[in-house]
């Protein structure tokens, strides 16, 4: 287990390193670093001074080391637009994105699991067919357009829910959260559902496939032959075994939910880091772009690492694989 853990950690570090090189090369070598790092309003003398102070006259590998050194100290540059450290800007907006993503994950499990279970247990009923057709629609519907339609129906025509913003927030652990107030929750409802749509379809399909596969297993047949009640077979024997892949995928999807919240946040003007990155790309506020990319890459690698490690705890085959070979 320790060997596996160390090897997996080393792999993760290697990926972080590789991604930092890619982001660095992307921003410093493909783009013009003077354009990127120096405010466009600066005059010629200011530019030259900045080129020197930023070390842009140094060779590329040297520049990379400086960039890496600063990044390790949490210095990812200052935003041109807000004139604040880029890292701080992103961290300020992170809770909004996180609560939206977790809200969406919660909805996708609460809605997706029961529907998938039903569709798996009764694959031929009309209800199941409707569920599966709905899940195809969930995969095909463009997220941003569904968001607009939600606004049109529930905010403009029915007037039930507010269309934009975070609403009232309450402080918990020193951070502002929307889900703690009723007003905040009403603001969160539409974006969270919008973000969840794709994941609901995914959970339904995974659960259905898992149930259909598990129902054919010998131990399920045996449990039924023993005369256990259908409910017990379903919820103890089947359900427990399909949970592992579903939980893994949902965990892995957390990262992609955070990434895709870029779209939902733009539609609902949700002040998270996704909206910040789009605004930053649009006004070429590159230090914020670099900081966002580095943070989200780090986040991804961490999530992947945690899921992998949890998986190896749940499924002994994964951690024994190395020993056998």
């Amino acid at each position: 287990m320790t060997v596996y853990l160390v090897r997996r950690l080393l792999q993760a570090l290697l990926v972080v390193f590789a991604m930092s090189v890619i982001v660095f090369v992307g921003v410093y070598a493909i783009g013009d670093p003077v354009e990127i790092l120096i405010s466009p309003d600066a005059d010629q003398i200011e530019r030259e001074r900045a080129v020197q102070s930023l070390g842009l006259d140094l060779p590329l590998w040297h520049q990379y080391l400086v960039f890496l050194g600063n990044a390790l100290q949490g210095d990812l540059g200052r935003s041109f637009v807000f004139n604040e450290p880029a890292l701080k800007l992103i961290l300020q907006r992170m809770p909004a994105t996180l609560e939206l993503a977790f809200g969406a994950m919660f909805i996708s499990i609460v809605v997706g699991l029961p529907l998938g279970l039903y569709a798996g247990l009764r694959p031929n009923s009309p209800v199941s067919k409707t569920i599966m057709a709905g899940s195809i629609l969930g995969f095909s519907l463009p997220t941003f357009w569904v968001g607009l339609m939600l606004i049109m129906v529930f905010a403009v025509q029915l007037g039930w829910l507010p269309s934009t913003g975070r609403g009232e927030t309450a402080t918990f652990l020193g951070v502002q959260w929307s889900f703690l107030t009723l007003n905040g929750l009403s603001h969160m409802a539409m974006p969270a559902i919008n973000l969840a749509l794709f994941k609901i379809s995914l959970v339904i399909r995974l659960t259905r496939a898992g149930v259909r596969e598990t129902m054919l297993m010998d131990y399920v047949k045996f449990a039924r032959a023993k005369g256990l009640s259908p409910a017990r077979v379903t919820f103890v024997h089947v359900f427990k075994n399909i949970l592992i892949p579903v939980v893994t995928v949902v965990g892995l999807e957390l990262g992609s939910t955070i990434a895709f919240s870029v779209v939902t946040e733009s539609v609902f003007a949700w002040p998270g880091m996704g909206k910040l990155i789009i605004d930053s790309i649009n006004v070429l506020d590159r230090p914020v772009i670099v900081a966002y990319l580095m943070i989200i890459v780090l986040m991804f690698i961490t999530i992947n690492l945690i899921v992998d490690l949890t998986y190896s705890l749940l499924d002994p085959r994964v951690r024994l694989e190395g020993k056998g070979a």
Partner: protein
Amino acid sequence: MSDATLNGAAAAPRKDRVETPFRRFVSEFMESRIAVLGLIVFTIIAFIAIFAPWIAPQNPYDLAQLDIMDGRMEPGTVGGAGFTFWLGTDDQGRDMLSGIMYGLRISLTVGAGSALIACIVGASLGLLAAYAGGRTDSVIMRVVDLQLSFPSILVALMILAFLGKGIMNVVIALVIVEWAYYARTVRGTALVERRREYIEAAQCLALPTRRILFRHLLPNCLPPLIVVATMQVARAIALEATLSFLGLGVPITEPSLGLLIANGYEYMLSGKYWISFYPGIALLITIVSINLVGDQLRDVLNPRLKK
């Protein structure tokens, strides 16, 4: 359909038709009515996209034809130019129906074009990985794994953040997002195929590697590749629409479906739904029809599901 026609249809091919793999493929594909419907719908959409300049009532990119006085008209109103705006107009007085037809052109071109380039790049690298094995294989597949561990939108955002906005950059971003799927698919199939006798025979004939790869190995890896390509075209269209909606894609003067939807965003709140609604429907129908075809192709071409 009566029993007699069913029997007649089933009996006829046996008499005068030899069953070729292609015919079998077509008849298996036809088994799913919804997939056939998807194919028909997609053909119509492609037709509209290709012939948009001849069938659209207006050229939405020609500013001379647009009249700002026709702006934000409701569906069904008759405009200054004398024809009816069946789907209304946007803020610049652009006929939405024409806008959608031209938008489809851009969406389909970008989607299919990027899928094609990604397919060529990905399939070549996948073939190479499977055939060469060893270090080449592990390097290529590590890059594929690394890339697939990040969601498509993030990779696309990253590339657009490096390269800046613009339609060409969107195509580049889509190619970089997609090639990994093709590479993985082709490699998986090619690994199985390269152990077959015909490859050994080709090697014994001392054929050049390039010929073995593209004339012998590739044709036998095609079925899964076709399935992936179909699905990826739909994904590429959706991703392009999303990026354009976010303002990172096509220029505002030549809107694709995503940008048309984005243009309607601010008018949505005042109840002018049609500017965003109809392009979205067009996008949805396009994506669903491609996915339906892809789903059936997967079932037909998957050897594991063969009866």
